[in-house]
């Protein structure tokens, strides 16, 4: 029941906000924060109750719905889903608390955020393939309105581009899902059955086409180069908290889907195509980092680093899928690393986008060249940005390192050359973040920024909580790794 609770509390909150009139900004925020927080609490309890030595999926709820089609309300979580879902819930609470200009419509804003939280958690927690697709698409709706209504710049265009592009991906995903569904002898959307039966093993071209449809759909969401161009514009024009959710949670739907669908349900086919996927991931790592280095806009720069980081995740997944050498330990390391990367990237990039939202609220400007010398003016802002930037460039002691180290070492054991080239990504990432810090905080203060305000209490407490998460994962990742390893060991066949 606990996962169902986590799933529907945000939607109840959203409903209440949508229906009941006359709430002030503060009240609306408190209601939203309470429902998001309760959902997070439920996930924490689910985590505490998760048995690492138990079966793959735990905390299962199942209610029959359309038995003739094999559709049912099924929720349950493995360690990977639980880790990513909990991170998402943390990020939603942070996004709700973070101050933002709601343009006189606080109720609607918080209702859409809660709606989005329910949909996103649904993707992570459902065990029914059809529901997976439904939740997957519902997230688009929520984000569409958040960008379109509360964005700035060309918000409407950006929202439309985001919606249409990723919706095209969803349709491919749907094709793949139908392909998977029809390949079963007694068709059902139950993921557990699909994982156990591996229905497409040894079916050649048909399996290849289904795999292609699934991967294309998920790669657009991730996004993998060259299917990424919806991302920068959506980020630049979205309000800060929505950007944080977009990067921190919605991108994970793509990589989480890769683990849940192709990796778990069609391991043999994925193994055949693991190397091309890994090479694409390498391209995303290097290309994303270099393009990010070439950006003069704060938010676009952070957006492109997301492409780079999701590249690490896809690389880890592809390595986990590869059966090239009989080295389950390395594949497990890569898969665990990929999952930690999702969690770490969610917290780190979430923090970075919230910070860029603060910049926008103060000056309405993302141009890096218009800033400088803020370190004295806003030491707290500087401190949190430096921490998040160093976490993002993979500094040990912070969350990103735990992920990237595992991905690289796991990759080296399977595809040594890809690992050797891939590590260059962390060098470029270091260059681009140091350059960003230099342009924002060091050097001379431009005269028009003489009254640049320091972070407010609410801002720094939210960033403080996210930073605490980043540091704790970096120093004591055991609690997270135990949870994830429980599932990645089963998925790579090590247990």
């Amino acid at each position, binding site marked *: 029941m606990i996962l169902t609770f986590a799933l529907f509390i945000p939607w109840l909150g959203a409903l209440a906000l949508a229906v009941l009139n006359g709430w002030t900004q503060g009240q609306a925020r408190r209601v939203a924060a309470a429902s998001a927080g309760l959902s997070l609490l439920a996930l924490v309890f689910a985590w505490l109750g998760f048995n690492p030595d138990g079966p793959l999926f735990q905390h299962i709820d199942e209610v029959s719905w359309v038995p003739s089609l094999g559709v049912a309300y099924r929720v349950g979580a493995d360690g990977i889903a639980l880790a990513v879902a909990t991170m998402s819930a943390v990020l939603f609470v942070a996004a709700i608390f973070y101050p933002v200009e709601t343009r006189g419509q606080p109720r609607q804003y918080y209702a859409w955020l809660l709606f989005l939280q329910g949909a996103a958690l649904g993707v992570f927690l459902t065990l029914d393939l059809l529901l997976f697709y439904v939740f997957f698409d519902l997230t688009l709706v929520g984000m569409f309105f958040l960008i379109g209504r509360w964005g700035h710049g060309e918000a409407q265009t950006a929202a439309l581009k985001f919606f249409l592009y990723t919706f095209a991906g969803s349709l491919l995903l749907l094709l793949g899902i139908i392909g998977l569904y029809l390949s079963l002898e007694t068709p059902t959307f139950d993921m557990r059955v699909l994982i156990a039966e591996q229905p497409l093993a040894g079916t050649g071209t048909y399996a290849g086409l289904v795999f292609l449809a699934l991967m294309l759909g998920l790669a657009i969401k991730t996004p993998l180069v060259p299917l990424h161009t919806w991302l920068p514009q959506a980020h630049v024009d979205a309000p800060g908290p929505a950007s944080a959710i977009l990067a921190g949670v919605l991108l994970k739907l793509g990589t989480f889907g890769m683990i849940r669908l192709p990796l778990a349900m069609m391991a043999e086919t994925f193994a055949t195509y693991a190397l091309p996927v890994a090479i694409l991931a390498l391209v995303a790592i290097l290309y994303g980092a270099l393009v990010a280095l070439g950006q003069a806009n704060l938010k676009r720069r952070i957006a492109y680093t997301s492409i780079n980081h999701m590249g690490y995740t896809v690389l880890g997944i592809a390595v986990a899928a590869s059966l090239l050498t009989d080295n389950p330990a390395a594949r*497990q390391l890569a898969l665990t690393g990929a999952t930690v990367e999702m969690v770490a990237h969610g917290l780190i990039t979430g923090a970075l986008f919230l910070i860029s939202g603060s910049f926008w609220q103060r000056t309405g400007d993302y141009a890096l060249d218009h800033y400088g010398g803020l370190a004295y003016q806003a030491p707290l802002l500087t401190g949190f940005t430096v921490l998040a930037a160093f976490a993002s460039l993979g500094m040990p002691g912070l969350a990103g390192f735990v992920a990237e180290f595992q991905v*690289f070492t796991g990759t080296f054991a399977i595809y*040594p050359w890809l690992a050797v080239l891939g590590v260059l990504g962390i060098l470029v990432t270091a260059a681009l973040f140091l350059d960003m810090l230099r342009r924002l905080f060091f050097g001379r203060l431009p005269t028009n920024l003489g009254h640049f305000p320091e972070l407010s209490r609410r801002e720094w407490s939210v960033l403080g909580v996210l930073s605490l998460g980043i540091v704790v994962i970096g120093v004591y990742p055991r609690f997270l790794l135990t949870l994830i390893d429980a599932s990645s060991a089963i998925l790579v066949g090590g247990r």
Partner: protein
Amino acid sequence: MMLWLVPLVPLLLAPALYLSGRRLGQAGLVALAASGLLVTLAMAGLAEAAGGASRYAWSETLTLGLAMSPAGRVAALLVPLIALPVVIYAGAGSGARLLALLVAFVGAMQLLILADDLLTLLIAWELIGACSWALISHRWEKPHVPRDAATAFLVTRFGDLGLYIAAGAVFAGSGGFGYDDLAQLQGGLKHVAVAGLLLAAAAKSAQVPFSAWLFAAMSGPVPVSALLHAATLVSAGLYLIARLEPALSDVAWFAPVTVVIGLATALAGGIVATCQDHAKKLLAASTSAQYGLMWVAVGAGFPGVALLYFVAHAFMKAGLFLSAGEAERQAGTFDLTHMRLGRRLPGVAVMALILSLALAGVAPLGAAWAKEQVVAAAYHQAVVLALLVSLAGGLSALYATRFQRLAFGRPPHSLTPGLPEAPGPSVPATLSLGALVVGTLILSVLWWPELHRSIVESLTFSLPPGHLWLLIVSLLLVAAGIAIGIWMTRPGQTLPAQLEAKRPMAAQWFGLSAATAALAGWTSVLGHRLARFDDEVVDAGLRATARAGEWLARLGAGRGEWLGESLPGSLTRLSEWGGRWARQAQSGQTHHYYTGIAVGCGVILVLLWIGALL
């Protein structure tokens, strides 16, 4: 647990120092930092007495291990010992941030020293890099400072990539990350691992071709340079290869490559230092060169010798940097051609003289003994190596003399500047400089055979056999270096025009600095090009799809709709016309009907005939 306290005490003290900065005041801060370092020193001593190893598990595969090693026993004591006077010196004129970062730097270095596996090593290795970035960018208001800090961080991080690869190779071969896994590694993976480690070490200890980053690091404050060169960042590379020498030397090419890199750096760095006019950069080039000598010792198979020279170097180099800082405070610049402060800073000048003599390798100072051991170690491999090392020693003597004479020589009376004099060195500055000089002097006891033999044996290292003629050659070269140095620095002395023309290039590492900058520039240009490519080409596919969709929609709305509208419309008209025509047939006249029947029968007959034919 004791082992963990050695790095954790300074690492945890650092945030406390930073946060309590305002409340404690200057003296309190320094006292707290210094006592923290003393505790670290005591912990290191206790840990050495207790020995053993300790692990901290992240997951089944990833464990962080600490253990005491012979090399670690030397370094773990040395680092806080050097940091102590440096922190006291730094406390005199700077805030809580600098002190906190210096203390954190010591903690990260201690973690590196005690690391027993590649994961822990990598963590510490990157942490000292981050600390150095923060320390070098201490004066971030100046536009060039953050740039230089980034350069230093990025060049050393390029080396860090080698550690990632080495860790990957060790894991691929053994499933673990321990140093013992590295030692047992076989085949191609071992070569990869050793190459990665060597790359990381070369970048950190500023060996050729990575030497130029040390110049960028000179943008940091004086105490930062002192600590960075003497005991932490730069020494990490040397420490790594000295610590892992038994495992690394299994690979046949390790020894020659290490010797060549070290020797090349020692000779090139010597020339760079001889040509450099910036006091700190002269010392920086000399750091590269001195570590080059230590690399030669490791490559020759005597890591113990390298470590002893490392100890001697740490005291003198930290002291020399502090003396350069005092000189800058008087002269207002690090330009050696505007110093000659012997009259204004007599005390500092005498202390610097002792340190310079140590750098020059003049007996009976301990540094000289250690350097002669390096020569002997090189001789163990080949005579020509020993002679080249001696030559590098001669160069050390040359630039040490040049530094001392230019910075603290006595000016000719006519040149005494009329500027108001800055206040003399503060008490903490004098004390810390004095402590380092005393350390340098005490090390002279290394010449005593019983002592150095027992030290080396207790650390399970060995010493190369010495040769008297080698010692004489080496000392003669030192004397020659000093003589040339004195000649070069006579007031009014100019170099021959040919040499003078080449000097600026040589002073900048023969163009290595420019090459590093160019590489960074190209990467940046590539980034900008790719960003435009992404906007104009990759996104164009999406825009083209959108345009194609719009065109299709317009086509449908225009022609398609017209076609859709007119097709059923014309069918209607056609059937209307047919209806009208059919009605005309109903004329009521019989002959019309008979004609119709006849034509109909004819048609039926023709059809039947066609059917029969087919």
